[in-house]
């Protein structure tokens, strides 16, 4: 990956939360949400970040967006280390990176009309002061996400879940970002709507040459939309590889368990295959942040990290 094409580079990102009370302090490392995570994403690429709840995937997304800045490490976006910028410089860079979250219901303001909601980032950043031009632009954005101009005047409660997520995507596009952090963008949507939103994100990526960090627990969807996947376990990346390579040849025992746990929509094969269960008593060990390249592009956490603890 050459420097010109790298949009985002995360180096040794660590996020710790101060331990409050006994609940968070267990196991000594329990207060370290993310530990020494490094990866890069190229222009136009989609990197999938997978792992279970508590693995630190959303923490990484929020740290990159500087919504919840990292405790240490660097987030280099388009050549600038975001952790070293002043507030005003950061504000400027942030226009180029936008989030799309899981719950479009929570993201929308129930009393704000859709048109105003989508235009709000433009107003905040003092862009497109001309009201007529701004309205035209919002209509363009609505069309891009598959909605028509009539949505301008509607309120969130008048929209279905899928339409709301489209509106959130339109708002994320308003400032013409090049990078989107999508945190479980379809998991609150109905099954028959999920494919629509996945296809929309892929179309937009192609049309606008967007770069994505796709945070998801849904490995089946990740396989379809991501170029590469990084697997998180206890706040560290244990394996990263091009998507097909990871699915065909998972190496880390945790990755294997994770992939084996997805029920296949095929009754004959699903009922025949043995179910490999995650053993909560088996200690995969504290993962190591050193990754070794096992085959081109396929990186695995150093071997001693997953030797069973004695």
């Amino acid at each position: 990956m050459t420097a010109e094409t790298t949009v985002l580079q995360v180096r040794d990102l660590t996020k710790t939360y101060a331990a409050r009370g006994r609940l968070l302090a267990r196991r000594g490392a329990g207060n370290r949400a993310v530990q020494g995570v490094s990866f890069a994403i190229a222009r136009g690429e989609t990197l999938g970040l997978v792992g279970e709840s508590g693995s630190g995937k959303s923490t990484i997304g929020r740290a990159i967006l500087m919504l919840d800045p990292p405790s240490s490490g660097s987030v280099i976006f388009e050549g600038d280390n975001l952790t070293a910028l002043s507030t005003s410089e950061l504000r400027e860079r942030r226009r180029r990176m936008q989030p799309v979250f899981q719950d479009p219901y929570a993201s929308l303001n129930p009393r704000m009309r859709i048109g105003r909601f989508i235009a709000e980032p433009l107003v905040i950043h003092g862009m497109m002061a001309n009201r007529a031009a701004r309205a035209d632009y919002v209509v363009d954005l609505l069309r891009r996400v598959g909605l028509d101009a009539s949505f301008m005047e509607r309120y969130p409660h008048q929209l279905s879940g899928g339409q709301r997520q489209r509106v959130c995507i339109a708002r994320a596009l308003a400032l013409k970002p090049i990078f989107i952090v999508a945190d479980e963008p379809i998991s609150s949507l109905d099954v028959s709507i999920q494919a629509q939103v996945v296809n929309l994100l892929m179309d937009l990526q192609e049309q606008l040459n967007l770069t994505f960090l796709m945070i998801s627990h849904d490995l089946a969807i990740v396989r379809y939309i991501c170029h590469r996947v990084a697997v998180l376990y206890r706040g560290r990346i244990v394996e990263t590889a091009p998507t097909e390579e990871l699915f065909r040849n998972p190496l880390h025992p945790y990755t294997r368990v994770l992939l084996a746990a997805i029920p296949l929509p095929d009754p004959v094969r699903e009922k025949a295959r043995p179910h490999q269960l995650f053993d909560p008593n088996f200690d995969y060990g504290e993962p190591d942040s050193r990754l070794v390249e096992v085959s081109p592009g396929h990186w695995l956490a150093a071997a001693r990290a997953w030797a069973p603890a004695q």
Partner: protein
Amino acid sequence: MALLEVRDLTVEFATDDGVVHAVNGVSYDLAEGETLGIVGESGSGKSAHVLAMLDLLPRPPARIRTGRVLFQGRDLLTLAPTAMRRVRGREIGFVFQDPMTSLHPMLTIGRQITEVLEQHMQMTRAQALARATELLRLVRIPEPARRLGQYPHEFSGGMRQRVMIAIALSCEPSLLIADEPTTALDVTTQAEILDLMQGLQRRLRMSLLLITHDLGIVASMADTVQVMYGGRILERGPITTVFNDPRNAYTLGLLQSLPQADEGGRRRLRQIDGAPPDMRALPPGDPFAPRNPYVTERCHREMPPLRPALDSVPGHLVAAWYDLRKVNRQDRVS
């Protein structure tokens, strides 16, 4: 005789914006020892009809307009509240999606299990406590005796769901109803819970009514699958038959929209266009008609009855005015 016979169940809700027609004439049977997977999205009526038959919907706003729900020959809808409470928990166990809201936050796990046993099984405190320990062991909770003295917040999501299953099974019900039992859980925990439910079902020879939006879970667990949409059953049959030879366009659309198990490479998913119907203003005909690429003129006018699928196995039922087998094969494969 079937363990459960649902006949022409119709449930509606009175709201400020009009009447929500949540369940519209649902009829089906569940045999002893059978696992029935009910698939549908929000508003399909899959959860509402189950809550209605357990008398767990506040009335009003809910209203059961028509129907009978025969459980071991007795109509649940005509039972007095006290008799209904005896059936619920004693003969029908249930597990819902969110174990946190189903457990009482201020009572220990032990108390919540023993309460059920004392009430339904006339056990003494000591007997109930011994049985509760056994139940936690059954659902594979480590250190059961110590865990009984703990409160729900001291349990992880997966562990709380195990507790819910333990409570549901405490009186050895003949029917377990599980509504999205693993949706709030991680995939590895989900695999554990499903494996657990399957093992217990076989051991206790229970019937299982499993409601889910996940076709993978249905494929793994169910003998029979029932697809619901717009408060109706659109298709039903043996799991392998319905997955291999779907006859309803919605079933086909759902199956096609899934990422295929072994397909590599990045590509667009096949999508179902449009949005689920407004349950306050359902179209007069087939509720899926507005989104159906194979729609006929009759679909818009008239609701097709659920009847045997032509040239298929017994028990394969479909509601459709069109014949999916006549759809261009090219279209179905690509």
